[in-house]
Each structure stands twice: as C-alpha cells, then as structure tokens.
C-alpha cells in the first residue's frame, strides 16, 4: 500500500466514476464530500512512518510511487498539507447542496484536488507545472455551466493560467542550470524573471488579475470561489518549495522586494476598486485579489513570523471565501439581484445570506473580532517595522475593502422593513450561520487556529 495510491489515485479514480454518473447530482455531491472528509481525517490520524492496523493485520505504508522514472512522494511532512487540502475539499463539497452547484462541480472538483496534490508530490517538483495546467483544464467545465457559452473571464483565466506553465518549466530548467554553473549571474536573473512571471500568471498577480472580477461575475460564485481558495493555496506551496530547495532564491533580496511590491499594489488597488464597487460578485473578485496580495506581503517579510502569518491566514481566507460565495450563490438561486441598488429588497428576501456576506466582507477586510483581524493586525505591524509606506498602502487597501462593506451595509437597509419568512432553506441557514459563528470564534480565540496551521510548514526545513 502506498500513500500516493490513497491520497492521489483513489480520489482521482472516484472522480472519474462520479463524472460518469454526474446526473445523480445529489449522490455525487455527498460521495465527493465523504471521500474528501475521510481522506482528511485519515491524513490527520494515520502516521505514515508506522505500520497501519486494519482488520487485525498490520500494513506498511510506502510513501513513494514511481512513474516514468520520476517519483510521487507523500511522506509525513505532507500530512498536514493533505489535511488542509482535503479538508478544504470537504468544506466546499458539504456546502455544494446549499449553493446549488451544477452537476459537474463535485466530480471535477475532486479530480482537481487529486491532480493538485500530485503536483506537490512529484519529484523533482519542476514537473508540477504541467500537472497544475491539467487541473486548470479540468476546471473549465466546472466554471462554464452545461448549456451556457463561455464568457470573457473564463477565456482570460484559461489564457493566463496556460501561459504560466511554459514560464515555470523554463524557469525550472534555468534553476537546474544554475546548480551546475552557480557563477552565472545572467542565468540567475533569467531564472528569477521566468519563475516570477510564471507565478504572476498562476497567482493572478498584478497586472494579470483582470480575469478575477470578470470570472466571479460570470461563473457561479461558489464554483469560482472553490478554485480561488484551492489554486492559490497550492501555488503558494509550490513557491515555498522553490524557496526551500534553492538557497540562492531564498537569499535573494530582489525576489522578496518584487513580492512586496506586487503584494502592496494588489492590496491597495483591490481595496480602492472595492470601495467604489456596486456589484457583489465583482466585490468578491477584488476580495480574492486583496487576500492574495496579503499572502504575498506575508511571505515577502522573509522571516519566520512572515511565514507563520501566511500559514495562519489560510483558514480565515478559506472560511471568508466560503461564506461569501455561499451567500452569493444562495441569493442567485433565489433570483435576487447582486447589485447594490437592489440590495434593499434582497435583505428582506434572503436576510441571513445578506448578513453572512456582510460578515464575510468585514472579516476579509480585517475588522476586529472577526477571523481576519488576528492575522492582519500583526502583519501590518511587521510590515510597518520594515517599511512604513508599505504598511500605509496595505492599510489603505484594507480600509477600501471595509468602505465597500459599509456601502453594502447602507444599501441593505435602504428599504422599509416588511414581514415574511426568510427565503433560505434550513440547510442553507445552518451552513450560513455556522460560517458566521466560525468567523467570530476564530476572531475571538485565534490561538488554536494559528498553532494548528503552523504544522503545514513542517515540510519546509530550509526556510528561514
């Protein structure tokens, strides 16, 4: 038995079966949720280095699998990452019935998770680029609902993500060439440029983020948010892999200055655009851009604290996106307009979804008592210690997002109250309420969440 079989081939095989039976939409959603939850729990409780007792017999788990002369490796260091990724999958699939996702969401979502785990397991990890591209290709039918034409956001997403692959592969080649010839400064610069461009395409870093607000507006928000939370998480871990493996990269001040500049511009511009936004789906797109910007800023600190803040930010980001996207999907499923001018009516039709989206916006903007604050506050403090200008711009970005939230709040209460039953179903109410409670609990008691998330960094022995 191999860990690779359990955490890559089994979910991928199940996803193929679910694609074949995709018309049984309720069953496929629950199977996908069950498989991801089971794999997350197994990764949490099974020790890869010891014998596994099953039905009274002991089995040894091998941690590698050979393919065409290369290795797929999932060892003990990857356990918390597996918990994170499969837990993230379970989180999204459990919410799928409430969001009313289309029939390809769960089967393709499971396939995407398996492929992305393979991209992090492959050694040498430079081969991850085509696997990430395969995951992007699989995601297209998930973003374009059956029977609908593809919009500009989807096409731009496909273009930018596909353009990222060649840059990463060529950057990987340049990195290997540097190991043979470390004195070649030109090659070093080229490697950083190629990798930087590849990561910029994949993480939707300025100026390649124009597809994000478009995509969140034209695809079902829940499907788009699944990708917005999963893809950047995996690409950030790939980036940390690069930094962990190549000393000259992690010792290069230019690389981290570039990250900081890109992160600052993303946070500031997304906040400023969000402040003037009148459409909730586009506001969601800008929230995603801002979160990516803050993650870049945390890594750009080039310190253990920065890395810890990056890891700690993953959970508030996941819950915030999930709650925001679920609220938007619930509103859409009730034919409620997502434009601010119609929100007064929306509040009286779907009050819980409206309030949940508001709480999500405020958490993403770093309001105290919500999950985003315990990560955002020390991050701004650390940024300010290094460069006060960067901290001020980051603060402006956060304030812009918060202003967008306040404008939404004002739009919600523009109409006179009317009486009536909430439009949401009981499962939707339960999930939305749970999301709001989780954001408050993680905001008031952040320590357990932060200490748990630090475990995902255990695989990066050389970093900082």
């Amino acid at each position, binding site marked *: 038995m191999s860990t690779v079989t359990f955490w890559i081939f089994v979910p991928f095989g199940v996803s193929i079966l679910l694609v074949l039976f995709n018309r049984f939409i309720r069953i496929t959603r629950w199977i996908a949720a069950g498989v991801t939850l089971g794999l997350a729990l197994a990764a949490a409780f099974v020790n890869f280095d010891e014998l596994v007792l099953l039905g009274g017999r002991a089995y040894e788990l091998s941690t590698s699998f050979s393919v065409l002369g290369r290795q797929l490796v999932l060892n003990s260091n990857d356990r918390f990452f597996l918990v994170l990724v499969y837990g993230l999958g379970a989180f999204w699939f459990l919410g799928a019935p409430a969001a009313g996702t289309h029939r390809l969401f769960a089967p393709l979502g499971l396939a995407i998770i398996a492929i992305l785990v393979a991209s992090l397991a492959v050694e040498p990890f430079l081969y991850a680029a*085509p696997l990430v591209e395969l995951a992007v290709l699989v995601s297209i039918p998930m973003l374009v*609902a059956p029977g609908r034409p*593809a919009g500009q956001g989807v096409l731009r997403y496909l273009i930018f993500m596909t353009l990222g692959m060649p840059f990463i592969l060529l950057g990987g080649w340049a990195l290997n060439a540097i190991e043979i010839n470390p004195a070649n400064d030109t090659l070093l610069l080229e490697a950083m440029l190629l990798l930087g461009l590849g990561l910029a395409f994949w993480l939707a870093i300025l100026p390649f983020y124009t597809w994000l607000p478009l995509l969140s507006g034209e695809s079902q928000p829940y499907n788009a948010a699944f990708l917005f939370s999963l893809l950047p998480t995996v690409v950030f871990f790939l980036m940390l892999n690069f930094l962990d493996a190549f000393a000259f990269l992690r010792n290069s001040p230019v690389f981290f200055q570039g990250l900081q500049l890109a992160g600052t511009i993303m946070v500031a511009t997304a906040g400023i655009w969000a402040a003037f936004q009148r459409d909730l789906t586009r506001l969601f797109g800008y929230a995603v851009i801002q979160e990516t910007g803050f993650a870049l800023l945390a890594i750009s600190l080039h310190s253990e604290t920065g890395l810890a803040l990056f890891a700690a930010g993953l959970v508030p980001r996941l819950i915030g996106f999930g709650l925001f996207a679920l609220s938007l999907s619930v509103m859409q499923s009730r034919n409620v307009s997502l434009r601010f001018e119609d929100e007064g009516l929306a509040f009286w039709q779907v009050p819980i979804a409206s309030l949940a989206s508001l709480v999500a916006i405020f958490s993403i903007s770093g309001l105290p008592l919500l999950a985003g604050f315990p990560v955002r506050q020390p991050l701004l403090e650390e940024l300010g210690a290094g460069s006060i200008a960067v901290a001020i711009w980051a603060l402006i970005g956060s304030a812009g997002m918060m202003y967008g939230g306040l404008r939404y709040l004002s739009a919600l209460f523009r109409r006179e109250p009317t009486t009536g039953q909430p439009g949401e179903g009981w499962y939707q109410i339960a999930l939305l309420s749970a999301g709001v409670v989780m954001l408050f609990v993680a905001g008031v008691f952040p320590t357990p969440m932060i200490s748990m998330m630090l475990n995902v960094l255990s695989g990066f022995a050389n970093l900082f």
Partner: protein
Amino acid sequence: MNEPAWSWLPLTLVIVSTLTLLISQRWRWSIIAFAIQYIGMFWMISWEWPIGLAAVKLVTGWMAGAVLAISQPGTALAETGFTRISGGGFKLITAALTWVMAFAIAPSLQTLFPAASAYLMGAIILIGMGLLQLGMSHQPLRVILGLFTVLSGFELLYAAVDRSVLVAGLISGVNLGLALVGAFLLVNPEPEETL
C-alpha cells in the same frame, strides 16, 4: 550551431500556417493550417530530438486538430469587431512586425538556447503569432488555436534544452486536454437537468 539543410522550409511552413490561422475566417482552412503548423514544428524538433520522440508532438497536434474539427460549429471563427479587408490588413501588418522581431532577436537567443537560428526563429514566430491571436480575438476556437500556437513555440524552445520523456508526455496530455476543453467550449452541451 550549424543550420540544418533545408532549414528555411519548415520555417516557411510555420510562417504561412500561423498567418493563415490569424487571418482565416473559415474553419476548414484554419484546421488545415493547424495541421501544417505541427508538420513544421515536428520537422524542427527532429533536429534536436530522435524522430520517434519528435513524432509524439506531430501525432498529438493532429489529434488535437481532429478533436477541434469534429466539434466546431460553422460560425466558430466569425469575427464581429473587424471588417474583412481592414481587419485582414491590420493583422498582416502586425504579423509582419512579429516576423521582423523574430528575425532580429533569434541570433541573440542562441546564447541561451543551443539551437539553430531558423529553429529559434520558428519558436519566436509561433509564440508571437499565438499571442497576437490571443490578443485579437474573443472567439473560443481562436483562443484555443492561439494557445496551441503559443505552446508550440514554447515546446520548441524547451525541446532545445530538455529531453525528458515525462515532460514530453505531460505536455502532450496538456495539449489533448486543451483540445477537449476547446471542444467543450464549442459544443456547448445540453441544458442542466437534475435527477
């Protein structure tokens, strides 16, 4: 590096096919040009790789072309933003600029990629023409063909520095996946139903 014999011929195939892909409004011509583009690319890669491995690129490209051909509706290439003559003229001028750029920078790229000048010109022309196609069109078929053209150029560059069978296989998988995505975007399947 010495130029292989007849090196201008695959380069001409690449130039003509990419120009046809950029200008043509008829899907049959586009698919034929797409197939010819892969012949040119295969020819060039065979200078760097064994014929057997290089043939993988040709077979993959033709399979992708076949998938796109059987799934396209008749209007898949129709442009709305350009008139036929002015649009064609504009595209021809931008294509000419791309060729000039390729001829200008290919020799300097030889310091990075150990390949013949015609080989690098072919790669740059493919990347440049593919990016033009991506920048000028909103039609899914044109976007997919543009992505294939860019990826072909990159594959040429990468083949000059790496001969990994796994990467060749994975990139072929990506190409076939891209063709299937293109087919999905073109076919526009039946409306949603739940059981």
